[in-house]
């Protein structure tokens, strides 16, 4: 029987398999950040344990950093950042601290450093670790107890999830982005449709995506409840990786290529589930509710809760509409926004910023809208500035900020005020996610940019 990409990575990282217990997997890359690691390091300290493989571990500061130039951080946040610095010093873990020039959102810097590679197992104390699967890695989020486990042993006991393949076929219309593929798929699967599964994204529309789009798509896997999302490595993957600091060189590069070319799922591989999405039928997507599965096309209307057959789903829709202050039947394009956020591990890479800047160039943010762009990493920020993207955004009235997770989760001062409505390129529209009482609509960078200019949901014209 053929094997899937997921099977191949899993089996190659098997340290121990025994009857009745979870498989023990070896971890190739462990990414660490300030929020989910302090208790794990403390656990090591209390047990007198070391970090087994600092050379396979990398820390950065992203969730709880200021993106302004001189915004003061509160004492608790400073304590948390200081704890990461102290822990990394004590345990010998390399740290890309704020101001190092290499810092950024953990899921942006792994790929840009060339550390995220095909066939690896990548973990991080963050659910959006699924992002790294865009390279054909098996990458998933873990909790703090598991962070401690990986620090101590470089392994993780895991039961093998089931497999789900989503084939994307057809050619997208202009203005339809990878974010729309993700939202449309989640809308169809539901936010728990992927629970217990690892998704493989495949098909001609995936092969046509650049790495940035693939990262966006894999990033959102967790929003369908899936453990991970993966895409078979191909020439696009290899071209992205070649020459990056963490990528192999010379003869090692050639050997790596040989290995990576064996990873894609075999033609006869069988998946536990399969679905197909025709992207030629998609239009840009906008969420209307309080989870990413509550989504409609931009030319649609806010749905009526009565249209949901399941009583739990109907009650959830009613709650969501009350929280979002929306009435059934309202055309999505008629909904105006107070804020626009372009950033997050979903959509803060250079291609995302280029796509948004192309729409914004020479125009002005709508009166009354506060719009910000937060590059995903210090490197993305430099690259964007070298191309003049910062000027395009600033001239249009956007704020241009320093790298970090920022308003995706609002741990730092970048938050919505109660009742404010935001078009956001991030990944979660949960109640209060971007600030208590804030109302989040998830969109692509293209829709976010056009919405900033129009003041209501819009597609680029």
């Amino acid at each position, binding site marked *: 029987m053929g094997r899937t990409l997921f099977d191949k990575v899993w089996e190659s990282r098997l340290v121990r398999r025994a009857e*009745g217990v979870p498989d023990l997997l*070896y971890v190739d890359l462990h990414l660490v950040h300030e929020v989910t690691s302090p208790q794990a390091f403390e656990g090591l300290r209390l*047990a007198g*344990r070391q970090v087994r493989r600092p*050379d396979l571990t990398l820390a950065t500061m992203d969730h709880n950093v200021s993106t302004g130039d001189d915004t003061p951080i509160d004492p608790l946040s400073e304590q948390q950042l200081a704890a990461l610095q102290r822990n990394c010093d004590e345990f010998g873990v390399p740290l890309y601290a704020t101001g190092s020039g290499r810092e950024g959102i953990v899921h942006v810097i792994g790929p840009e450093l060339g550390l995220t590679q095909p066939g690896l197992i990548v973990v991080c104390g*963050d659910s959006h670790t699924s992002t790294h699967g865009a390279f054909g890695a098996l990458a998933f989020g873990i909790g703090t107890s598991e962070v*401690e486990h990986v620090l101590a042993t470089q392994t993780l006991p895991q039961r093998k999830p089931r497999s789900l393949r989503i084939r994307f076929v057809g050619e997208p219309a202009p203005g339809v982005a990878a974010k729309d593929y993700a939202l449309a798929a989640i809308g169809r699967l539901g936010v728990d449709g992927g629970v217990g599964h690892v998704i493989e994204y495949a098909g001609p529309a995936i092969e046509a995506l650049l790495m940035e789009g693939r990262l966006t798509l894999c990033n959102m896997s967790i929003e369908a409840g899936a453990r991970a999302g993966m895409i078979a490595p191909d020439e696009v993957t290899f071209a992205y990786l070649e020459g990056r600091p963490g990528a192999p060189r010379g003869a090692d590069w050639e050997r790596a290529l040989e290995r990576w070319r064996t990873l894609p799922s075999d033609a006869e591989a069988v998946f536990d589930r399969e679905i197909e999405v025709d992207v030629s039928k998609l239009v840009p997507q906008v969420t209307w509710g309080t989870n990413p599965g509550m989504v409609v096309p931009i030319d649609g209307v806010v749905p009526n809760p009565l249209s949901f057959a399941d009583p739990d789903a109907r009650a959830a829709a009613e709650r969501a509409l009350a929280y979002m202050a929306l009435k059934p039947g309202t055309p999505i394009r008629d909904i105006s926004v107070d804020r626009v956020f372009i950033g997050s591990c979903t959509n803060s890479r250079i291609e995302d910023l280029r796509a948004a800047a192309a729409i914004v160039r020479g125009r002005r943010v709508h009166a009354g809208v506060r719009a910000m762009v937060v590059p995903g990493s210090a490197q993305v920020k430099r690259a964007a500035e070298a191309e003049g993207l910062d000027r395009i955004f600033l001239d249009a009235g956007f704020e241009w900020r320093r790298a970090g997770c920022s308003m995706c989760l609002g741990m730092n001062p970048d938050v919505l005020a109660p009742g404010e409505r935001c078009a956001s390129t991030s990944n979660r529209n949960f109640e209060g996610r971007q600030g208590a009482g804030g109302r989040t609509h998830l969109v692509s960078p293209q829709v976010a940019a056009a919405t900033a200019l129009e003041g209501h949901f819009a597609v680029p014209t």
Partner: protein
Amino acid sequence: MRPFRSVTSRAVVLDRPDVDTDQIIPKQFLRRIERTGFGEFLFFDWRKDPDFELNQLGADRARILLAGRNFGCGSSREHAPWALQDWGFEAIVAPSFGDIFRQNSLKIGLLPVELPVEQVKASMRRASSGEELVVDLEARTAGGFPFELDDFSRDCLLQGLDDIGLTMRDEAAITAYEAAYAAPISTLAL
């Protein structure tokens, strides 16, 4: 971790699907670097509503939470199970859980019990009328309904086993794997 055998208690009923970990413990409390003390911030925003389920009389003494499907979806923050446990919950019964939340809960001795939705709803009706429920891990029953949990997870919970200590018993296998393993990256060489 804390061992778990059984619990008999009134239950809080939170009959909503897709309760995410951002609701269970909002982000402003993730700045703390401790593992304890999160209970007072559990469902911080929702508790501002006096009608919220956790504000009802006796909820602070409940040891069992009955929840809707996909409970604990979203963020990987282990602060969510920490907060539930710190509040006093020992078992969460729901039709399904977010994968990471479920895993995190098992690691700290907070028992996630999966039952078919009709059985959860039936338990909710009984709990709402004030009936105490029993969650018995040895017998693998909750509210009288049998539930599934693999033997390994059950044994770890019953004995309160330290996961890292267990893996360290496989030190020989890890060392053998590493001997044949050519690390594809080095974060120290960048």
